[in-house]
């Protein structure tokens, strides 16, 4: 069994470990958090693996963010190329999250347009995904006159179905929120189906890590819907994800009906999330605390048996969190904010705090 796994994953494991060795180190983050201005940030990045990717980008903060995302997408591409069968489909679906984010931006642009104004420059809000793996052409969608036309153009892809089902809510509310939530819920439903199609051993590993992502989203959404949108518990339940690692249907029900933040925390007793959320009731900081837990889980898995799908999923978690932190750093730099003011927004910082407190 072990030799079979070693045969299947020898190339993948070695390549993933090489890719992991090129991620930013803690010292890189510390150096970058000390400097100010675009030039300083560029100098720091030139001492990392980003130095090789430098030539093709505009010398601006937006150019940097574009470069980070392209680096992330090229990592996804490398991983997808190595795999086959159900594992490949799972990672491709994970990658489609970014395509879905683009679609949400397009929906917002199209639905906010009162008249048929010029569309030039709007593509700057979109992530530059690789064309060869794209399910739809963003350029074509941006030319659409309304959401119905977008749904028509998305025929043949999985995006069309959830949008069609939520169209009546969109017509009533005149906001893209129901469309975006329908996309999210359908995306995560499909993701769980992809996880379920893996072999028993790999399914357990994937559910262990990605199940935490479901829990995080459920907590974050419930928290936000209560605090900012004042939704009814029934509506909150309607907008929650069906699966997860620690949050059972009963616990989700209790969370939806909780009266305040402390009640929510009490309903999380017995899960690792209670302790993480006890320090702040700011949704953004809570979200980052939860992501830092996901990072610590990925790091723990990384030290285990190497010839399994967890190695790939762990690396993708590391890479996504690296890009997220880099964007936070770049934006802080653009706004000339001191590190002390923004340190709570860095996931690696929360992770460092958590790992120090547990040691």
């Amino acid at each position, binding site marked *: 069994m072990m030799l079979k796994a070693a045969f299947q994953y020898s190339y*993948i494991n070695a390549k993933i470990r090489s890719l992991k060795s090129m991620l930013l180190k803690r010292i890189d983050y510390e150096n970058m958090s000390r400097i100010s201005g675009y030039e300083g940030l560029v100098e720091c990045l030139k001492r990392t693996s980003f130095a090789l990717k430098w030539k093709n980008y505009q010398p601006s903060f937006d150019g940097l963010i574009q470069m980070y995302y392209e680096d992330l997408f090229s990592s996804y591409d490398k991983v997808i190329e190595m795999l086959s069968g159900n594992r490949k489909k799972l990672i491709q679906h994970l990658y489609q999250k970014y395509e879905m984010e683009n679609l949400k931006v397009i929906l917002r642009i199209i639905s906010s347009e009162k008249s048929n104004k010029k569309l030039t420059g709007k593509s700057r809000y979109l992530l530059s995904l690789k064309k060869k793996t794209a399910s739809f052409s963003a350029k074509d969608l941006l030319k659409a006159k309304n959401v119905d036309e977008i749904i028509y153009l998305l025929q043949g892809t999985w995006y069309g179905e959830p949008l069609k089902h939520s169209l009546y809510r969109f017509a009533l509310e005149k906001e893209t929120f129901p469309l975006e939530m329908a996309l999210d819920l359908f995306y995560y439903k499909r993701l769980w189906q992809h996880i379920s199609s893996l072999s028993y051993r790999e399914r357990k590993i994937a559910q262990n890590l990605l199940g935490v992502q479901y829990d995080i989203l459920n907590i974050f959404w419930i928290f936000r819907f209560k605090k900012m949108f004042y939704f009814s518990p029934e509506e909150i339940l309607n907008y929650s994800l069906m699966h997860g690692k620690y949050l059972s249907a009963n616990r989700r029900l209790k969370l939806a009906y909780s009266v305040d933040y402390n009640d929510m925390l009490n309903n999380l007793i017995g899960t690792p999330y209670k302790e993480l959320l006890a320090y702040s009731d700011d949704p953004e900081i809570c979200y980052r605390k939860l992501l830092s837990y996901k990072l610590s889980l990925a790091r723990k898995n990384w030290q285990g048996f190497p010839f399994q799908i967890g190695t790939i999923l762990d690396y993708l978690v590391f890479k996504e969190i690296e890009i997220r932190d880099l964007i936070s750093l770049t934006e802080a730099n653009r706004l000339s904010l001191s590190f002390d003011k923004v340190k709570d927004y860095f996931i690696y910082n929360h992770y460092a705090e958590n790992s120090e407190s547990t040691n």
Partner: protein
Amino acid sequence: MKFSFVSSKLLPAVLISLVTISLFMTFLIFVSKAYSTDTISHTETTSRQSTNPEAIKWGFFSAALAIGASTIGAAIAVGLVGSSAMGAMSERPEMAGRALIFVGLAEGIAIYGLIVAIMILGKI
């Protein structure tokens, strides 16, 4: 995909065969040695032990098995180490030198078999 199919279906069979062959080969080496010594003591022709046809037959057979089994083992090892080395080198070409050392170590398994085969052939 094809590779993983082959490995998943045939690997257990290959492994069991390898273990069986190795055990059988060890058994043969000892049996052939004991048999030849026994024959020699009976006929009292110590200088002509290699002319015993049975000992020669089993000796050649053992040498062939030693080479064959160790080569299969080395092939498996090189397959694993080589693909890992390619994976590492595809992202970090500077690792080529270090990776090749490990491929060489795996290749050494075949050489051990060759040495054992030469030792067997030297006895007959």
